[in-house]
């Protein structure tokens, strides 16, 4: 009564195998785009200063001195919005969108009331009303100040700056542990990028302007790429790899020790990647992320970028230049 063909039909049907496919890889750079924003420090306290720098690239490589519009958005995200910022942050004319100037970098200061606006502290109540609901932390226990970036093509981006806010609504013991042991986030950094092909492993040298000749690869050749980062202590310490950090468990309201995940986003001006992103979860002790890159079938120069993002909002990147030849 039950045939194999019918079962397969059921499987196909139930899988909603009818989901469409898109040619929507975000890894290949065909037009100028903002790939990442790094803030330094990666986590700042209320009232603290931080700087922002953008990785803005195009088919010809990094775009120098891009005319990016930077702004701090002081609008809170409505409760019916699933995104990380209030959509009104992208409008113009709001007094809550504070311009930080134009350019490839910007400097800003975390508002002194950031932990009220975007953190665990309840804003002052209106007389006769309960206190407003505080912002919920992310899965790492963090809170973020919205930074919005507009590029010359009209594309908006956000680059939230993690802010250090003492937890609210916890016991003194918990507060003491967090205050003493929490180490603000540090941006991750790429230790190395290696490639493996039929000719064996090789280290890809960053295109840092030091005059190093770009690596030459065969057109159409497949490479296993591996990006690595530093090994970090298992206790909370500043580190450019997957850091261990203290967090407040929202369920038990106790302090827990977690480890950052690190995700590598892969970008290139040519060829194709097997995955747009790859990485290691917080429970995965690995120190690298791998991907498969297929070189373009034409000769020329290919720019390649790897952006590392840790779970607490830290960002680091490195650019590489490759030559393909037939």
């Amino acid at each position, binding site marked *: 009564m039950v045939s194999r063909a019918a079962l397969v039909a059921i499987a196909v049907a139930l899988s909603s195998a009818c989901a469409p496919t898109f040619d929507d890889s975000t890894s290949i750079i065909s037009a100028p785009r903002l790939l990442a924003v790094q803030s330094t420090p990666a986590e700042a306290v209320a009232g603290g200063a931080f700087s922002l720098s953008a990785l803005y690239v195009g088919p010809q490589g990094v775009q120098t001195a891009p005319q990016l519009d930077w702004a701090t958005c002081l609008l809170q995200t409505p409760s019916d919005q699933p995104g990380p910022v209030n959509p009104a942050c992208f409008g113009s004319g709001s007094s809550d969108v504070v311009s930080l100037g134009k350019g490839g970098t910007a400097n800003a200061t975390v508002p002194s009331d950031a932990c009220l606006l975007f953190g665990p502290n309840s804003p002052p109540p209106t007389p006769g009303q309960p206190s407003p609901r505080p912002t919920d932390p992310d899965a790492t226990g963090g809170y973020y100040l919205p930074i919005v970036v507009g590029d010359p093509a009209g594309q908006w981006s956000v680059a939230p700056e993690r802010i250090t806010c003492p937890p609210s609504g916890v016991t003194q013991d918990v507060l003491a542990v967090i205050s003493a042991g929490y180490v603000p986030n540090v941006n991750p950094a790429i230790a190395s990028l290696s490639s493996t092909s039929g000719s064996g492993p090789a280290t890809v040298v960053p295109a840092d302007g030091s005059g190093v000749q770009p690596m030459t690869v065969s057109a159409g050749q497949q490479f296993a790429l591996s990006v690595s980062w530093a090994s970090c202590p298992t206790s909370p310490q500043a580190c450019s790899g997957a850091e261990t950090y203290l967090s407040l468990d929202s*369920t038990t*309201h106790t302090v827990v020790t977690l480890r950052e995940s690190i995700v590598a986003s892969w970008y290139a001006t040519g060829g194709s990647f097997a995955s747009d992103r790859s990485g290691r979860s917080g429970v995965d002790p690995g120190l690298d992320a791998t991907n498969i890159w297929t070189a373009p079938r034409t000769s020329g120069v290919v720019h390649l970028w790897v952006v590392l993002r840790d779970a607490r909002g830290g960002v680091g990147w490195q650019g590489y230049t490759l030559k393909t030849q037939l």
Partner: protein
Amino acid sequence: MNRRVFLPCVAAAAVLAVSSPVLAQEAAPPAPAGAHKLTRPPRLVTFIEAPFPESEKAAGHGATVVLELGITATGTVDKVAVVQSAGAAFDEAAVGAARAFVFEPAEVDGKPAAIRILYQYEFVLKAEAPTTAILAGQIRDQRTRKPLAGVQVAVTGAGSATTDAEGRFRFDTVAPGPHTVSISGAGLADVETSETLEAGRQTTVTYDVELQDSKPAEDRDDLEIVVAPPAMEKQVISTQVAADEARRVPGTQGDVLKVVENLPGVARASVGSGQLVVWGAAPEDTHVYVDDVPVPTLYHQGGFRSVIHSDMVSSVELMPGGWGPDYGRGIGGLVKVDLGPIPKDGVHGSVSSDLLDSAADVRARFSDRVAVEVAGRKSYLDALLPVFTSSNVGQYIPIPRYYDAQTRVLWEPSRTARVELGGLISSDAVSDEVPSTDPTNVQKQTHDSGFRRVWLRYFKQTADGAEMVVVPSLGTNTDSLVDAFGPVPTELEVNATVASLRASWRKRVTNWITLTAGVDGQFTQSHFRRTGSTTSPPRQGDDYVFGQAPPNQVAHDDGTIIASSIAPYASADVAIADGHVHVVPGVRFDPYLVTTNRQYPPFGTTPAHGLASESTALEPRLSVRWTPLPALTWKVGWGQYHEPPAPADLSAVFGNPTLGLESAEHILGGVVVGTPDILSFEATVFHSTSQNLAVRSPLPTPLAAQALVSTGIGRSRGVQVLVRKQLSKRFFGWITYTLSQSQRAVAPGAPYYDYGFDQTHVLSAVASLDLGHGFELGGRFRYATGYPRTPVTGSYFDGKTGTFEPIFGPLNSIRIPDFVQLDVRVSKRFAIGDTNVEAYLDVQNVTNRGNPEEFVYSLDYTQRRYITGLPILPVAGARVSW
């Protein structure tokens, strides 16, 4: 007899005869004219009514005949002549009557004398005074309540009649007064009862009789007849489908309860959702009762199967709105599942199997008073698929895993009482995983749900004809959704203990009033646990696109909610105008007590403060049915409805512990023309408004413990049409069409938007034809407007995650394209001895049309396409019953 005669007094006639130059003239006396004087005119002392000619009744009007009467000196009439004719029939009647008149003789000169006068005889047609009564009714099997055909019903002085296929009989001309009603027939001993009938009134009765062969031989002389209240009229708007008809509907794979999806007023649910969307209401606002036992769902997850074995079901009835006061705690529709009777003898059962699951049902009667039924179903697709495909297919495909079981023990301590102990259990589990090289993009989802119920049902029919039903039930509901999108968790778990008590009493207190009164109580203790973002899972009215990662914000709350209410209710079915009009006013008084263990979000070591709130809902209901003709019924209904908020919405972190009762008002009217067994047409116009709906706080930063507020309003309006031919010899089918609009607003005065479950047009056509030789061919065609969705008008890049986020346009301002699907079912029935076998092939979407079910977007939200629904899907199965 409709007859009335105007009799002019003789004196007046005499005066007329003397004074009227036209119509009367003084008769010529026997003496010479002028020699005598009329000293006393004749006086009519014996009047004879002339019958109104039957041949003239059809004309609908009366007539006047002017006669010349010759009256003798003794007062008799010896001559009658027509002076002014009104036609032969009237003339003859008038002349015949006048000849028998007797007068006090006229006196001429003080002495009795003969005389001639003119007499005007008027015939006036009028309605006859009622002189007879009507007795109509139905004979049913006392055990099964099924109608009995072919039963002889005799009424003293009125003859006898035989009940039709619906068990109905009727006597149109019965003399008023007491009568003995005798009932006899195959399988029945002669039984008698008495009825007192009133002239000009119709008395409608229902007799529940016990079949002789269902009783032990020693008891067969002790038969009785129970005069039951009239069969409960359907709610003012409802559609009921018998199980035998429902299981043959294409697309249901023989599942009786899946027929609800094709009834008028029901929107087409998205594939795999199993949701019941009735008149545009939220699925959770429509409630399901199985023999008065509330259950949380009608279908297993995905909607592939119902939670009750089809062989247990007698019928399913959908009431989209305007229902009576016996049900409450819901502002949407109502689905009632009636469990069927257990056969009178022997062991019966069925086994069925198809690609999804197998099911079995066994019914056994151990004596005339004790019977048992056990049924169950178990899915096995999750076990079969890995055998034929990759072993880890379950990680990628959300394969439903479910089972359900039901049991009933029936004890009938007397012929008029039944006690039933029953149990239900249902369990669902669905899990899937989307792997990724990106740990922040790994998706895992597990959704487990289920419920259990035990109940005791006591039915008693008293000697005075009243019916009493008491149904206490106890059970649990469980629902656990655990979703992880990378590091972002979403957990929502609600476990509830549910106790309910429904008790009703119903009696025909007079020939024209049937009273219903009862109590409907429910106690629910829910423990919820929720973790994740406030917007995950999304609510209706949120900006959201399918597949979007949940916001990376994590909150947590858990708590206990107790919601209890015990509602007395009453209604009266008042039959007036000879039963042509039924006015059914009712009222339900529903006091709610809701307690939460936490009024504010947890804060440090501050102890939680609970909150108890009491709300009272007074819910008047009214329905009126007018049946001016046997095949024409007009009906209107109105009612107010309330329901408590969902337990998880009372969370101090994710919701609002002070949410009040949601309320709705239903107004509807319609007409039914024809009879379902031949062909019926039913049209209903409806309008419902709802208030105090739980919606997101409109504040950019909601106040503490007020993430939700009770300001939402809604409205739903439309018209539904049903053309139906019920199952008869070879064919059944129906066509339903619903035109509706369902909208919501976040607060009074705020603009309305199309509700996420709004479907403007829903058309469903179902037909099944018995081809003979056991073959049956059926088809189902469905068309539905797509659900509204919020468009994505742009996107922005999130530098923190390296992903894109959507920018939304106006809420629910675009729609998924229309749904069109044709399903076909072919079955073959045959018998092997006492065993019946049915093999069927149910092919869904025979045209293999790719119906869009949901929008999906590319990673950067620059491209939009559709997830399409099930491709052509043949499901073969078989059912063996005995």
